[in-house]
């Protein structure tokens, strides 16, 4: 079943990229979910779409060779910094930053897309993901991002955990909370831009949150939850890519639906797990 993925270059790069984002998306997703920032991923993915649309427009209208992955990444990082700025402007309504940035992203996308004379297959691939869209260059870029993200999380793990659990305590104890948070949001923006080739703009946030939602039901402690999320993320990406390829469906759809199935199984398992305990407790 996997043979095609090793035989053809474009499929191989897709597969390897899938393995990378299967790690980094749930890895950051764990922190995003526990900090109740799940919707930030959605806002940033729509800003990334604006960046991609800008790249496509620049190429079509002005003949500029601006790879959409790069322009998407630049927009996403700028969007992440703006979200942080807006969160400090609206201190009492921090979640407002998300719809503001999300709608700005969609608004810009619509403008750029119509200047570029409307939809084409390429844009469709960006929305829902594609098994054939990853070039060698894309792969190398995403590999670089993945290494960077994993290194930051490993070396700043205890700071990220402390900040996620209790921001007030982190600040009081002398951590540079604001700077660490900004770095984290920028990492999130990079991971989203990196994931879009495969899962697509509309579903990228699912890959960051669904595996975490499933592992949250089963894990004991934070580290275990993180590892389990990565396992679920990898499983979704691998099964999603293979089934998407053989069924000729964009992989965004299949990856997310497999994540949903894993989530449902996790919820079911938790129910079975907790039933006998309840009986014991009541004795």
């Amino acid at each position, binding site marked *: 079943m996997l043979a095609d993925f090793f035989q053809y270059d474009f499929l191989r790069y897709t597969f390897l990229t899938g393995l990378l984002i299967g790690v980094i998306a749930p890895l950051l997703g764990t922190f995003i979910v*526990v900090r*109740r920032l799940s919707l930030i991923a959605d806002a940033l993915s729509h800003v990334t779409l604006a960046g991609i649309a800008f790249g496509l427009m620049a190429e079509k209208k002005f003949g500029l060779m601006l790879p959409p992955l790069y322009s998407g990444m630049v927009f996403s990082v700028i969007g992440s910094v703006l979200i942080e700025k807006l969160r400090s402007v609206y201190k009492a309504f921090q979640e407002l930053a998300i719809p503001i940035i999300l709608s700005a992203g969609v608004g810009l996308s619509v403008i750029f897309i119509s200047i570029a004379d409307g939809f084409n297959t390429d844009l469709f691939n960006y929305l829902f993901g594609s098994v054939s869209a990853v070039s060698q260059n894309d792969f190398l870029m995403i590999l670089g991002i993945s290494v960077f993200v994993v290194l930051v999380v490993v*070396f*700043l793990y*205890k*700071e990220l*955990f*402390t900040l996620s*659990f*209790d921001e*007030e*305590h*982190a*600040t*009081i*104890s*002398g*951590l540079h909370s604001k700077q660490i948070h900004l770095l984290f949001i920028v990492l999130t923006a990079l991971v989203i831009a990196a994931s879009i080739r495969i899962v697509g703009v509309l579903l990228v946030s699912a890959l960051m949150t669904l595996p975490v939602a499933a592992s*949250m039901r089963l*894990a*004991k*402690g*934070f*580290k275990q*939850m993180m590892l389990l999320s990565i396992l679920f993320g990898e499983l979704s990406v691998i099964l999603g890519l293979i089934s998407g390829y053989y069924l000729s469906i964009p992989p965004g759809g299949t990856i997310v639906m497999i994540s949903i199935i894993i989530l449902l199984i996790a919820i079911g398992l938790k129910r079975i797990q907790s039933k006998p305990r309840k009986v014991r407790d009541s004795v």
Partner: protein
Amino acid sequence: MTEPVVSMKNISYSYESKKVLDHVNFEVPQGSFMGLVGPNGGGKTTLIKLILGLIKPDEGSIAIFNDSINPRKDRNKIGFVSQKANSFNKGFPATVFEVVSSGLTAKIGYFKFLNKTYKAKILEAIDQVGMLAFAYENIGNLSGGQQQRIFIARALVSDPELIILDEPTVGIDYENVKRFYELLHRLNKEQNKTLLLVTHDTGTMTEYATDIVCLNKELHFHGNPEEYTSLTEKDFSQFYGHPVNLVSHNH
């Protein structure tokens, strides 16, 4: 006489035009177990924020550990326990061990990992608050009183000289409040930790504290529990700025 752990001279602080602290002189003697009481809006939390270095006074000076405050250097010497049992996200998927380890994050420093010594320290802190059997349980599965003990362990793990507690017993039932005070009493007596406790629960507090301070914009009283309990309704009405009915706490 040893040097005070905290010494505030002539401190004033205002939120926009509202003055909450007015020329307050205040000392926390080393080794004391000080209870800080006063009405809501009387400036207790502001005073704590000043000591923690989160805000700067409009007027006056603060010395901590006989040194004018250098937040980053001295923050490790101060442990802080807030009303966490009420306000933290109960579903947060972290074990007791992980929560307590976060108390060491700033002390260990960036780009460094928890080694064996630190891990032993974490278990020791959990043991000190009598929760070792729960070290690898998710914190959300514990009761409010147990959770508050874990937050004490998180403050203890960095080996602070001063522990500040901001209304830590809110929402905890009477039996557990009693056990909580006994734990604080032990830390104060056996480990010589200086404690500064903000509380509304003056009844139980007077049984354990060595010093009591009443704050309502100005410092109204500083004495020992005997002096405090001998205060009359008239004295209290003066502090609070309105008539007060004393209710005795004879649990």
